[in-house]
């Protein structure tokens, strides 16, 4: 209260009536109703936003009656040209010329219908909507004498343009990638699927951040119960801030305690489009170019976007390489440890002799040796991500020569170990899914411990536990370890063990007419409270 009074003292005395109302309302625990006085409203809004300097308030008068009006918008997240051209100009000049001075009844509705030459306009009746509107980049117009406000969609401002995705690069295929703007991202996918049965459902997640999240699917292709489950999970999220899709991924997973992620992410609109056409669901999160796909199976992690643009015969062969890379990146160090420590007899004699002579000077057991090298590799990898480009070459020389060759010559590790670690590291990059590669990096160390303790027996038992854990996972009710591609009907299945057999999108399904009698049940299920203007962007029109 003290703070509030202090703020009040700086204002003109004419605000008295409004502040009284505000006090009365704040005693009730909510925000006051919108006052009829323009000055009160503008002052209240200023005070709510902490008198922020990037909030622009422009007062003016409309028409021959000289009705005082005020437009409020945030600098930087609005398109200034639009504010000037379609809000201020049309209200100050054009509305005045056209308006009949005798008419008075509902001036806001009149303005909304006749004056504002802007695509999306809403009538707002409470402060929460108004504040959210202003903070999302809309322009809100108050009129003296009316306890309502109009918002016009003027979202805009500086944004990153569409560029080629940096993490999922293809050789032959589209080069556009998602940006941080959810509106742009949705439009990139929309452009690829011009179907009336594409459904988009908005959500707001995070009490403070109020992050826009959108769920996109093709009605009739995506399974209804999966969509319903996703809706329930998204609307059930109680969280303060959502700043990226990683957190959302964690929040809507079926099983939270697992090193595996049961949703895949992509920054490619064509990947999203392909998944949507296969009956899966895309989840867009504002503020990140990485959007989520659900449901996901384990084998889907090994499909890359490139596969859609390559001949299926070649893809089948490449995917086998990826599986081999998976097995190598997971098992290579542990198999080496097991063979050296427990099962020397299975190594062919000449190789065993050579290994033995290499290891003669190495003071460590194979497990410690492997741990040293793997750990060094992990450090190099972490450093490689963060180090400035300019000194990259120097570090790679240090990494390759000093840590590799010199360590062998110094007798700290054997050269066979360097080969094992190198092939493990390279294999882990062959995995198209970064998430999966991370999980495998983690599990590899546990496997190494199992191998050091019990040799192949330990590896076998650990694998049984690992695979049974993966078998217990599910992604929106779809088993994670299923060989079948989820959501795709049996007859149209075009992958075997994740290997695509044909790229043809099989016979088109009869697209259910949108909003028709058949789809009535689904329309009801859409969240009714979500405002519809959240995803649109003035700049993209």
């Amino acid at each position, binding site marked *: 209260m003290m703070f509030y009074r202090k703020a009040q003292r700086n204002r003109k005395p004419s605000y008295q009536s409004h502040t009284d109302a505000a006090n009365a309302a704040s005693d009730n625990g909510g925000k006051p109703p919108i006052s009829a006085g323009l000055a009160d409203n503008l002052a209240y809004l200023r005070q709510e936003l902490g008198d922020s300097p990037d909030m622009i308030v422009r007062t003016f008068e409309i028409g021959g009656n000289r009705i005082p009006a005020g437009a409020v918008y945030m600098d930087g997240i609005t398109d200034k040209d639009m504010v000037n051209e379609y809000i201020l100009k049309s209200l100050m000049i054009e509305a005045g010329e056209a308006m009949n001075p005798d008419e008075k009844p509902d001036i806001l509705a009149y303005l909304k219908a006749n004056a504002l030459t802007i695509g999306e306009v809403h009538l707002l009746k409470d402060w929460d909507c108004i504040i959210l509107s202003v903070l999302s980049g809309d322009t809100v117009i108050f009129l003296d004498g009316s306890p309502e406000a109009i918002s016009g969609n003027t979202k805009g401002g500086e944004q990153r343009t569409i560029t080629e995705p940096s993490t999922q690069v293809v050789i032959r295929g589209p080069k556009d990638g998602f940006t941080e703007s959810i509106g742009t991202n949705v439009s990139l996918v929309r452009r690829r699927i011009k179907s009336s049965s594409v459904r988009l459902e908005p959500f707001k997640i995070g009490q403070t951040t109020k992050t826009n999240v959108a769920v996109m699917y093709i009605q009739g292709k995506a399974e209804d119960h999966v969509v319903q489950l996703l809706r329930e999970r998204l609307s059930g999220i109680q969280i303060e801030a959502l700043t990226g899709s990683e957190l959302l991924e964690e929040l809507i997973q079926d099983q939270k305690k697992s090193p595996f992620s049961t949703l895949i992410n992509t920054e490619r609109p064509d990947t999203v489009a392909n998944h949507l056409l296969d009956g899966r669901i895309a989840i867009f999160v504002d503020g990140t170019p990485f959007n989520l796909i659900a449901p996901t199976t384990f084998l889907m992690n090994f499909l890359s976007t490139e596969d859609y643009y390559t001949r299926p015969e070649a893809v089948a062969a490449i995917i086998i390489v990826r599986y081999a890379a998976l097995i190598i990146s997971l098992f290579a160090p542990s198999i080496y440890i097991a063979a050296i420590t427990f*099962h020397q007899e299975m190594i*062919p004699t000449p190789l065993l002799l050579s290994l033995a002579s290499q290891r003669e000077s190495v003071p460590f057991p194979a497990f410690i040796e492997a741990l040293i090298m793997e750990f060094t590799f992990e450090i190099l990898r972490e450093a490689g991500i963060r180090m400035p480009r300019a000194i990259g070459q120097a570090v790679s020389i240090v990494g390759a020569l000093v840590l590799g060759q010199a360590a062998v010559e110094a007798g700290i590790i054997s050269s066979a170990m360097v080969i094992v670690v190198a092939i493990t590291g390279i294999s882990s990059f062959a995995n198209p899914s970064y998430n999966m590669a991370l999980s495998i990096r983690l599990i590899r160390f546990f496997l190494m411990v199992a191998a050091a303790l019990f*040799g*192949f027996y330990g590896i076998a*038992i650990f694998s049984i*536990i690992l*695979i*049974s*854990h993966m*078998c217990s996972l599910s992604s929106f009710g779809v088993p994670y370890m299923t060989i079948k591609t989820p959501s795709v009907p049996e007859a149209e299945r075009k992958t075997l063990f994740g290997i695509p057999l044909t790229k043809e999108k099989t016979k088109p399904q009869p697209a259910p007419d949108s909003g028709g009698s058949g789809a009535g049940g689904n329309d009801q299920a859409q969240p009714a409270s979500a405002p519809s203007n959240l995803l649109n962007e003035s700049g993209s029109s």
Partner: protein
Amino acid sequence: MSKSSSVSPTQLFAMIILFEFGTALVLPIGQAAGSNVWLSILLAMPGGMILYVLYTYFNRQFPALTLSGYIRKILGPYFGWPVSFLYIVYFIYISSRNLREAGDLLISASYDETPLATVHAVMIIAVIYVIYKGVNVLFRLGEIYILIIISLGILSQAAVLFSGALELRNLLPLMGEGFIPTLRDAYPNILMFPFSELICFATIFPHMKQQKLIRKTGLLAILASSLMLSLSHAIEIAIIGKDIYSRATFPLFTSITIVEVAEFMQRLDPFVILTLIIGVFFKMTVYAYAVTAMAADLFRIEDRRQLAFPIGIVIFLISVLSAWSFPEHNSEGRVHLITGSPFFTVAVPILLLLVHLLKKRSTHS
């Protein structure tokens, strides 16, 4: 039974094959037939199929009930409860025998300095984990591991073929001592191990998605597994001859050590060990699962998962303590093969069938 769990026919097929392979792939089966073991296996197969049909018959009569459920229904609560309890004890014992066989092979193969209890403990951790995760996970796991087992089998048999260690003359004479010893080996020995052990699948049938396919799938799986078993044992004998075969503790292991391809694949023992670990794991887990299912039914325990740990520990202790040495374990096994096994897998089910038919007739008339 819980609605959430459901097993598909493919999963049942895979699991029966893994279960049949279990230890039967690695251990010598049948005692007397010598070079004709592979024939005995094929001869025992029809008997195994008849037993399987008998087990599924009860499932058709009581689709929702597990083994202990319909035993009590048929024999009444006073006789049914102790008989069901005996089944629990029997299944625990078989499960621990399987564990012991794996443990002893592992120790004789490459873990001669590791204590038996440690080797067993590692395996039982995996069993407890999978039982805890539930029947769905177990069967999905089976679906994946059948691929691994079959590819291991194809690889090692290809290696055997190319190595030239195959001495087909070892398989002759075909029924040199007449038809009778071969037949006597099949009945009861091979019928009891591994075919009659399928009785513990009676606790899994209620989880099946398509009840109608249980019989067909199972019979196909028995056919496939006995063909593969027969082939594998024929190859073993062809490599090492019937003398060594009948003396070796683990004939598959002995025979595979002889194989050498192109001076490169010199030792395929890890394949055998892996096969045994996988086979034993699934076999003992199915048994352990049967125990938990029946114990949950008998003692009215809602959450079957609670039982995973205590039952795992019991199996572990019995596996370590039941015999001082592997020869003792084997002699126990021979006794068991002519006493416990026929009683539980043949005598009691036939008795149940008779009582059930009599009851049915009396209610009809």
